[in-house]
């Protein structure tokens, strides 16, 4: 727990001094306006809440991949990672503490997207099912924490993994139904989409914003929980494997 809290506190200090890591707060309004304008122009007010949510979730995912994914890589370049590994603290817990802050801050992107929608289009997003929204958001954040850890671990495999981080942005927006509904994806791609916790999380969050009673909440939440837990497990396994690999190869630091 001490290691987790140490990581958490470090990231809080770090976030306060690194404004450039808050770029998503600039980009999210752009996506929000873009998606809102598309459904507005199409005369589909029923899709408006989902479109605004998509803009917010894109920002959330972007922060997890870019900021979370860079945590270890930055530490390797700055020479702090070797020092961290040489302490008695469990490195995955320190990373988990840092990721918790990264993912936690992204929550603010959703109200930001709603605020922009209200200011630009004059439409207030209402939440008919706040409990569904809250639970779906919490479980999705757990999955995002795992995804960010997974990306951070994978980034250790290369010296400059920007291409990997880039590849994990737009394809995931499409695959998880953040830009267009998953139903418009080709049949063969839908099973892949269903493997992503973000698909289930986004769908449940959309359901929480629609006026009708959501259906199949039990099994949909179960699938979200399983896919999120799987992502968290995969993140930690990858992290442990790459840490061991880096210790053997002598690549905990980069010069």
């Amino acid at each position, binding site marked *: 727990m*001490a*290691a987790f*809290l*140490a990581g958490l*506190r*470090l990231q809080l*200090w*770090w976030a306060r*001094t*690194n404004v450039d890591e808050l770029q998503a707060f600039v980009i999210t309004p752009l996506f929000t306006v873009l998606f809102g304008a598309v459904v507005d122009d199409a005369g589909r007010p029923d899709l408006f809440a989902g479109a605004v949510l998509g803009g917010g979730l894109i920002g959330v995912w972007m922060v997890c991949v870019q900021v979370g994914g860079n945590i270890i890589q930055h530490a390797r370049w*700055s*020479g*702090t990672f*070797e*020092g*961290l*590994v*040489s*302490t*008695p*603290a469990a490195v995955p817990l*320190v990373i988990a503490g840092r990721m918790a802050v990264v993912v936690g801050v992204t929550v603010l992107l959703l109200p930001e997207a709603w605020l922009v929608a209200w200011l630009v289009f004059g439409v207030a997003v209402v939440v008919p099912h706040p409990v569904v929204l809250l639970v779906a958001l919490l479980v999705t954040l757990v999955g995002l924490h795992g995804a960010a850890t997974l990306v951070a671990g994978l980034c250790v495999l290369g010296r400059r993994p920007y291409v990997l981080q880039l590849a994990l942005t737009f394809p995931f927006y499409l695959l998880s139904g953040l830009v267009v509904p998953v139903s418009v994806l080709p049949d063969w791609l839908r099973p892949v989409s269903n493997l992503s916790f973000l698909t289930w999380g986004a769908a449940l969050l959309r359901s929480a914003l629609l006026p009708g009673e959501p259906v199949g909440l039990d099994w949909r939440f179960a699938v979200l929980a399983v896919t999120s837990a799987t992502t968290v497990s995969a993140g930690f396994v990858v992290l442990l494997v790459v840490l061991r690999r880096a*210790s*053997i*190869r*002598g690549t*905990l630091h980069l010069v």
Partner: protein
Amino acid sequence: MAISAVGLRRTYTRATGFLRRERSEVVALDGVDLQVPTGEVHGLLGPNGAGKTTLCRILATVLVPTAGTATVAGHDVVSHKRRVREELALVLGGERGFYDRLTGMQNLLFWAALYGLSRAESDRRARMVLERVGLAGRGEDRVGTYSRGMKQRLHLARGLVAEPRVLLLDEPTTGMDPIATKQFHAVIQELCEGRTILLATHDMVEAEVLCDRVSIIDDGRIVATEKPQTLAAWMSRYERIDVDGVAPALAETLRSVAGVGRVTVGTDGTTRVETTADGASETVLRILLDEGHTSIRTSLPSLEEVYLHLLGHRDR
């Protein structure tokens, strides 16, 4: 023994080519044997690429050895990493190794927390070590605003904040000017008393000032382990004397002096006399003064030159 290494070997695989990958093995450590008793300040002296940092990294458990065994405070660095990490701190030199946008105090609080210290205890120790390394007035400033010497002192503070029994100092004065280096040596002598220290350096003077014993490492092997006084003797033995305007006959006389290794004349006319034995430089100086030469300069050999003498002129 606080630190023990037996037959420690570390190799790296280097791959070249894209379609046809060719792999070659680079030996960083080649069977290192080292014993450092508790409480000793032990120098690890060698040129760049000799294997000093690799050895420090293995002892700090951040690098896995290819073969051999090593223990710190009796704990194996491979099978009991956590126990080793509780006993030591790795202090790397240079300007890297900190969160530059955080303050010195925040950096220290983070590192203290990693050793499981409570918030209050971390705070107390961080303030104490900042005071002792002379950074008390700059603790609330961002590390990015620190000079190189201040960062080096912060490195040392980081190493001491958890009060480890064993300190690994890897090139702690790299890039510092002579005055800052001297001050830093005084800080190390004051703060590290009672601890076991392995000091990796390429600076013979630093090793002589700080260390109880010194191991010379070259090409991944420990060549010799001696007291610093022995090193000093090597340095004085291999002295260099430069003098202008030496006549050919006098040069011949100097060549015949016992303990003179070489007499060479540079393109600018300067004659260089290199000695290889104790007392030879005094004899040479006396001869030169008797012949009326007053423009004489003496200098100590570089570490590499001492190595060449020590290692028998083998290819490097």
